[in-house]
Structure formats: structure tokens, C-alpha cells
């Protein structure tokens, strides 16, 4: 089972792709997904994270089939 990963805006450009996938394992957290997909880059302080299209804080554990998104501060309106 895979975790679907999405990147938006500046983060998408820095990653060089809009989407990725990570193999699920028990105990996998948001920061593990970032480490795997970014090749070990530090998480930017301003980075925002959503799991299943809801904002999350901290480093929550993920479930099989979750969708994780990484993006910079939002600038709509």
C-alpha cells in the first residue's frame, strides 16, 4: 500500500515534480515522508502540511492510503 504525496507552488518547483508515492509502513510519519521524497533535505520552517486535505501540525503518524501534501504559506485572496 502506498502513501500519495503532493507538492505545490515553490515546493513543487524545488522538488521538480508535483506528485510522488512512498511505501507505507507501520509508524510512518509526515516527516519520514518528507525525508524520503526530498532526499534528506531539512524541512523548511514555513512548510505547511495537509493530510487527506486537512491542515495538520506536528508530525502525525500516517495510515495506509493517506494523501500527504507539502506546500509553502498560502497567498490567496
Amino acid at each position, binding site marked *: 500500500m502506498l502513501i500519495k504525496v*503532493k507538492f*505545490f*507552488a*515553490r515546493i513543487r518547483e524545488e522538488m521538480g515534480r508535483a506528485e510522488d508515492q512512498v511505501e507505507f509502513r507501520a509508524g510512518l510519519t509526515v516527516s519520514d515522508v518528507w525525508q524520503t521524497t526530498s532526499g534528506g533535505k531539512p524541512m523548511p520552517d514555513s512548510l505547511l502540511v*495537509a493530510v487527506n*486535505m*486537512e*491542515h495538520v501540525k506536528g508530525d502525525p503518524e500516517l495510515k495506509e492510503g493517506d494523501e500527504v*501534501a507539502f*506546500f*509553502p*504559506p*498560502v*497567498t*490567496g*485572496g
Partner: protein
Amino acid sequence: MLIELRLAPFDALAEVKNYQALPANPGKIGAGCIFVGTMRDFNEGEEVRSMTLEHYPGMTEKHLEEICEQAENQWAVHDILLLHRTGDIEVGEDIVLVATWSAHRGDAIDATRFIIEDLKHRAPFWKKEAVKSGERWVDRNTAGYASS
């Protein structure tokens, strides 16, 4: 209630007029509050020529619906109209429209302010501006005042 993302330009005040022609609660509405956000030709000391608005399909719509539901729970709002552009935007075009209707002014004014502030700080949209030197991402929204 109507919440929509629009790829094509819209005329915010015409949208309000058309929507008001279909009153959800005729006779019950005593106040309406309208906020329109429009694209400027300057930002952070530089001339801005155009802009592209990226969003997170699925989450953006969901987040806007949640904001409006929160506003309805917190204030006695009879109706809400929320439109937001995506894609390529030119100077002078409307970016966002928030309109709320209530029996008394306080509810409409406070609900409109709540919706636009939450949208600005939490709804997944990202602006990329075209300036003389090329393109640049907007890092963050201002606090909403000329001095900020």
C-alpha cells in the same frame, strides 16, 4: 450558499447583483456585506504585470466550504456567496468575492471579515507574479494594511 472557483474573469459586483436577484430568504435580509479583492499592479515595491494562481484541487474547495460553514455557525448569516479566481489573472481583474447577508449588519460584517481573513491565511492558494525581472512566488500575504 454558492462557493465556486472560476478560471475565467468575473465581475464581482455583477455577480452579487445576479445572486441577490435569487433571494434565499426574501424579507428576512436587512444587511449585506461585500468584500472584493482585485489584482494590483504593484507589490513589494515592484510593478506586477500579471499573476498566476495555483490551488490544491479538492482541498481548496473543501476548505472554502468549511470556512463558510464555520461562519454560518458563528453568526446569524442567511446566505453566502464566495467566488475565487484560479489560473492566469490580469491587473484590475477581480480575484475574490465574499458576500454575506443577514438580518442585522453586525453578523454580515463580522462573517465577511472572518471568511476573507481565514481564506487569506489558510485556504490553499498560491500567487506567482510576473514582474520586470521575471517571475516570483509571493511568500506571504500582508496583514491587510498599507503600513504592513
